[in-house]
């Protein structure tokens, strides 16, 4: 774990404050810019550290935005992690709160009705795309392809047909994966 002088920590915080308002579609959309800033411009972490941060956030429970505090942690320990997380969330959160309040007080106007109706099909398409992208790595992995495809299909069916909590399915997935079956 590294530490940074207070001036660098402040620079890190301010950089995330500006990236926050650019992160339309999620923090992952600003990942290339974070890589440029942390690895190339500042040299706080290495290229492999950056990839590790994203992989760790995807493996751990919780939103994928948590790769951001991991970057902060790699560069500057716990203060870096806290500065990165608060920085990436504060401006976007305040803006979202304001916009959602504005929108819900005007729910029945034609513009807001059109907005929610017009976006719904795009959202559904994006969720299908996310499922496809998550499944894709298994298609290119002959050793585990069949087991993984069965697990994906089984999860989908159980989710659609029962009210089982996801954690049990995840547990079964972890056990089958650890045993080398899926």
């Amino acid at each position, binding site marked *: 774990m590294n530490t940074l002088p207070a001036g660098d920590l402040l620079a890190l915080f301010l950089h995330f404050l500006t990236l*926050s308002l650019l992160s339309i579609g999620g923090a992952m959309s600003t990942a290339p810019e974070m890589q440029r800033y942390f690895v190339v411009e500042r040299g706080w972490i290495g290229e492999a550290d950056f990839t590790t941060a994203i992989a760790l956030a995807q493996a751990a429970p919780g*939103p994928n935005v948590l790769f951001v505090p991991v970057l902060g942690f790699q560069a500057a320990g716990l203060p870096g992690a806290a500065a990165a997380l608060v920085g990436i969330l504060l401006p976007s959160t305040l803006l979202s709160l304001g916009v959602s309040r504005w929108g819900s007080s005007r729910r029945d106007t034609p513009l807001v009705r059109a907005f929610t109706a017009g976006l719904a099909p795009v959202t559904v398409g994006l969720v299908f795309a996310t499922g496809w992208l998550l499944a894709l790595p298994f298609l290119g992995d002959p050793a585990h392809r069949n087991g993984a495809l069965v697990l994906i299909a089984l999860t989908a069916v159980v989710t659609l047909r029962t009210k089982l909590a996801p954690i049990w399915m995840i547990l079964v997935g972890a056990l089958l994966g650890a045993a080398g079956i899926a």
Partner: protein
Amino acid sequence: MNPSPHGAAADAGTLSRPGSPFALFIAFSLLALQGFGGVLAVAQRELVDRRGWLSRAEFIELYSIAQMLPGPNVVNLSLMIGDRYFGWRGALAAITGMLLAPFLIVIALAASYERLAEFPAVAGALRGMGAVAAGLILAMAVKMLGTLRGNLLGPWLCALLGLAALVAIAVFRLPLAWIVIGLGLLGWGLARWRVAVLDARAAHGEGR
């Protein structure tokens, strides 16, 4: 903290609600801790199917807005749901629930990563969890399809916009921001036009 017994009623039109900001905090912590490979599908399952705090249509509406705004989609979604019930205190409770426990876990993992990566069983378990995450998301997408039935765009325009989004991401790998802004504005414009047509038709019908 058992799931609400009324959860099953979510689609019958009788919704339940959280009792306090603390209940929100606990609910969002529990769902975030189940969110391996993405929280969205788990959020839909817990908040809509099991607790019945939102209908499917409300969930998709809030999520559509959440992803047009800057910031992580599920964090925006959490704050909107929390704000709805308890104002800014609810928003804060939901966001803190969504982030606090996972933040501590991911930092602990980052601190011990180099020792964990040596075990093949760990890599296998992560792979298995990834497959389940893909299945959860696909099932969620199938459920969301049903909410488009009453959409004022009609089935053809909905299918066109949805397929365009799917192809743009899955085949062309375009940046998400372009797709959300581009197709979002297109969908908004088309829906605004449909609202005008439907309103005009309704006014005309009443005039006879």
